[in-house]
């Protein structure tokens, strides 16, 4: 295991920021850490990085205590910042030297994140998205075995986000483990292997997207569009359905989806169209993060 947390607990002046959090990340695995603001995501990351101490439980990072094997761990902080007087290239050269890598790689690294043309401009003139890319570039230095990325895609446009996740795919294919936090739930759904949901410092759910969807047991929505003039007739046939404008919305548990579809299909030409809408990641996420009295 690249990263292993067991019953991790951290208290800030009496309030529990993290309460018995247990999970692990395997080599090459991409894990998304979700949770509302103040759920303990950044605190957990800072503990894993060895930046702040913890009160209880055990943490093993690349087989050592947090902060002990910094050579193999890369970090992208939330709202990453750099000294405004240095150029992008100078900043990356500094980071390369400190990691013991040849500083001449700086231009290549900046080119990988699409900053080649701005490399010799001062970071003070960069936009937020460009600073974020400098942050990504420094996280790629020296083939890290574990990447800790705190809201890595904030401030990036959709194209840059896609490029960023392509970079991550390459890294995890090489065996690097990735732990990232994000608010952009849809991209997390498509681009990570496993999801860990924190709420009020507790781990409330973890697993693959399908597993969580199954565990939540949220209803499926069947949206029925009636044929012209058949709205009233359909409503009498489907009394459980709710009328939303022209359409009828029927909510049912996932295991009754086919039965209901068969009933709708039996209505024949009265139905113009049917859409099946599974619970969205937002629905699942709020289902889990609202549990435990949150």
């Amino acid at each position, binding site marked *: 295991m690249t990263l292993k947390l067991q019953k991790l607990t951290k208290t800030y002046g009496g309030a529990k920021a993290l309460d018995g959090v247990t999970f692990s990340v395997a080599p090459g695995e991409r894990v998304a850490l979700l949770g509302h603001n103040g759920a303990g995501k950044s605190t957990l990351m800072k503990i894993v990085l060895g*930046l702040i101490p913890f009160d209880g439980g055990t943490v093993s990072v690349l087989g050592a205590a947090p902060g002990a094997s910094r050579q193999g761990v890369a970090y992208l902080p939330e709202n990453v910042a750099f000294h405004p*007087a240095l150029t992008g290239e*100078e900043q990356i050269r500094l980071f390369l*030297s400190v990691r013991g890598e040849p500083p001449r790689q700086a231009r290549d690294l900046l080119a990988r994140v699409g900053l080649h043309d701005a490399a010799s401009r001062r970071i003070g003139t960069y936009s937020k998205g460009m600073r974020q890319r400098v942050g990504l570039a420094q996280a790629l230095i020296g083939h890290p075995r574990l990447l800790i990325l705190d809201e890595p895609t904030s401030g990036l446009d959709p194209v840059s986000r896609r490029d960023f996740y392509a970079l991550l795919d390459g890294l995890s294919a090489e065996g690097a483990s990735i732990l990232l936090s994000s608010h952009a739930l849809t991209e997390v759904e498509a681009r990570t292997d496993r999801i860990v949901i924190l709420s009020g410092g507790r781990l409330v759910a973890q697993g693959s997207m399908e597993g969580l969807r199954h565990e939540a047991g949220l209803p499926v929505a069947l949206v029925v569009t009636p044929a012209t003039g058949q709205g009233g007739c359909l409503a009498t046939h489907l009394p459980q359905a709710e009328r939303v404008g022209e359409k009828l919305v029927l909510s049912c548990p996932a295991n009754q989806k086919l039965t209901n579809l068969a009933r709708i299909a039996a209505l024949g030409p009265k139905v113009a169209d049917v859409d099946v809408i599974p619970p969205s990641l937002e629905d699942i996420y709020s289902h889990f993060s609202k549990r435990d009295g949150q």
Partner: protein
Amino acid sequence: MTAILALALAEFRIGIRNRWLAIAVGLMMLFALVLSAAGSGPTGSLGVDRLSVTVASLTSLSVYLVPLMALLMSFDAVAGEVERGTLPLILTYPVSRAQLLAGKALAHLGILTLALVAGFGAAGGLAFALDGQAAQGLPALIRLTLSSVALGATFLGLGYAISARARRPSGAAGLAIGLWLVAVVLYDLGLLAAVVADNGGAFTLQVFPLTLLANPADAFRLYNLSASQATAAAAGVSAAAGAVPVLWSALSVALWPALAFALALISFRKVLP
């Protein structure tokens, strides 16, 4: 070592872009030249060479200016990184906090040394150009330069300690100015008052020399005046200069930088990002 040099290089660049190097060099040269021009009058009557007199004036200049420049360069070192949010990232890199501090100190001390060499060099050059006997004062000028670098290092270290304790640049700036006022102005005023009130008693004879050694600025002044032959040019501490062996003041000047950096490191280690 590569890491420290890379950190120092980046910090030095920042120093150049923030105009710190230009300001420090300009300020030192301006004051040094003004002082050596103003102090060139009374040499004949004192019977000492022009450079020795210049060194005495430059000592008084250094006592005020070097701590001030060092504190202005260092107060932002940790607090500024905390405020910008750059500290957590660099602390996850494989460098120790001691190395981070060493990188900053190397760059800041380099800037300060350049300024001192430029200022004192200009003053020395002027003295040599006007007085053939100026070579007599050369050892004093070298002593002054080296001890000024040590004085600068001391106040850089104290500035880093303040910066780490204050956490905010505004608070650190206030504390730095406060430290400067106390160390180079109020401390001496307090001692003067105590000596006057004591009227030649036990305090003046036993405690007073030790209090001078305890303050890095006073130890610096004491060392340069007692080591050089121009004590007459600085009547204020000349009596004390005679009472304290040169070795003691030299030791204080040399030990303070280590003490200040130890203090800075202890304070920096307490900072949680």
